[in-house]
């Protein structure tokens, strides 16, 4: 096998060599060949407090996992299969590291407590609490509360699209590389309807509850069993995704 010029073999042949014959050189050749893809994906996550080199290394782990998990029966190109794996690995890395951009620890901690506190105050008051009421609960200033709320967008920002810990959901980045349906662009940018069908079922349902049934975020949170802040994030993210699909 070693006499074969691996550089000229196509991906599928190299995958077959690796999976059927345990040819480690074929695996190495695949990794080398697809490192430019990793570098390209890693660049999207640059400037978030991690060196590009580190992100590339994390992405490379995703690539190796994709090569190892690839099933020869799949009728899909390795690049298509690897892309969500690489992105997923990078996202997990950021998620584990916590904050995507530098946010003071005190604000991180305050933000972390914000969701449960808002839930508790909403139940206690029978309505959504004001900023001052939230501040009083934390014995802090309203400015700190607003900063902590805003800092929440530094954690799992839209472009990184990581869901809050413990709340499982579909992720737009995980759809990269899969066969997406092409949605027609529309000149009527005020209508988001054509992109609605592309959303995961739960997000469609949340939008329906909010904009058709007219339920409040708190009511939706109760019905779906997630926090109000998460409902808010999902609504924003869904609308943003729909808009970007319409271009």
């Amino acid at each position: 096998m070693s006499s074969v010029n691996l550089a000229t073999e196509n991906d599928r042949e190299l995958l077959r060599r690796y999976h059927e014959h345990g040819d480690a050189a074929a695996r190495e050749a695949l990794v080398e060949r697809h490192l430019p893809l990793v570098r390209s994906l890693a660049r999207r996550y640059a400037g978030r407090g991690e060196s590009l080199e580190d992100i590339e290394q994390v992405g490379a782990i995703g690539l190796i996992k994709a090569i190892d998990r690839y099933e020869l029966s799949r009728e899909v190109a390795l690049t298509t299969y690897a892309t969500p794996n690489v992105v997923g690995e990078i996202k997990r890395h950021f998620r584990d590291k916590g904050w995507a951009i530098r946010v003071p620890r005190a604000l991180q901690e305050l933000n972390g407590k914000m969701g449960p506190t808002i839930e508790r105050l909403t139940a206690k008051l029978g309505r959504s609490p004001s900023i001052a009421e939230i501040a009083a609960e934390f014995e802090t200033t309203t400015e700190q509360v607003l900063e902590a709320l805003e800092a929440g967008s530094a954690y799992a920002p839209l472009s990184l699209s990581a869901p809050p810990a413990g709340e499982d959901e579909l992720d737009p980045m995980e759809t990269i590389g899969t066969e997406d349906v092409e949605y027609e662009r529309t000149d009527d940018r005020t209508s988001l309807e054509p992109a609605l069908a592309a959303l995961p079922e739960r997000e469609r349902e949340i939008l329906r509850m909010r904009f058709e049934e007219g339920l409040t975020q708190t009511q939706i949170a109760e019905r779906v069993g997630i926090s109000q802040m998460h409902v808010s994030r999902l609504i924003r993210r869904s609308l943003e995704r729909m808009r970007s699909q319409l271009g």
Partner: protein
Amino acid sequence: MPSDRIELIAPTGQAWEAVIRMVLGGIADRLDLGFDQLDDLQLAVERLLAEGDPENPVTLSFEIHEKGVRTRIGPLRDAALAEALQGPEPPPGELTLPRILSTVVDSYGVEEAKDGKLVVRLEKLVQTQ
């Protein structure tokens, strides 16, 4: 009570939306708006900012009065948007910008439309508890 007024001229684009959300947060605090009302207002403003001209800044004005806040955003880019916002209510089940706005603010309207540009007015009232 005479209304207080805040005016911002901001570049269009997500990079500056955090600044605008913070301003809205400060206004919500002054008005004692609930967290969900603040979130709704922020969402309405964000949706309209997405209709701004990426090449030109947008002006946001906030008039704070005892019953709520009146927000004006413009210039926004196309006449089609004006037609959509001034047209009839979209049918049930159709998700459009007018439907989003009518859900998250108390009222909205197109205040000025010339040279193909427009200014949209949003009214968010303090909910009596």
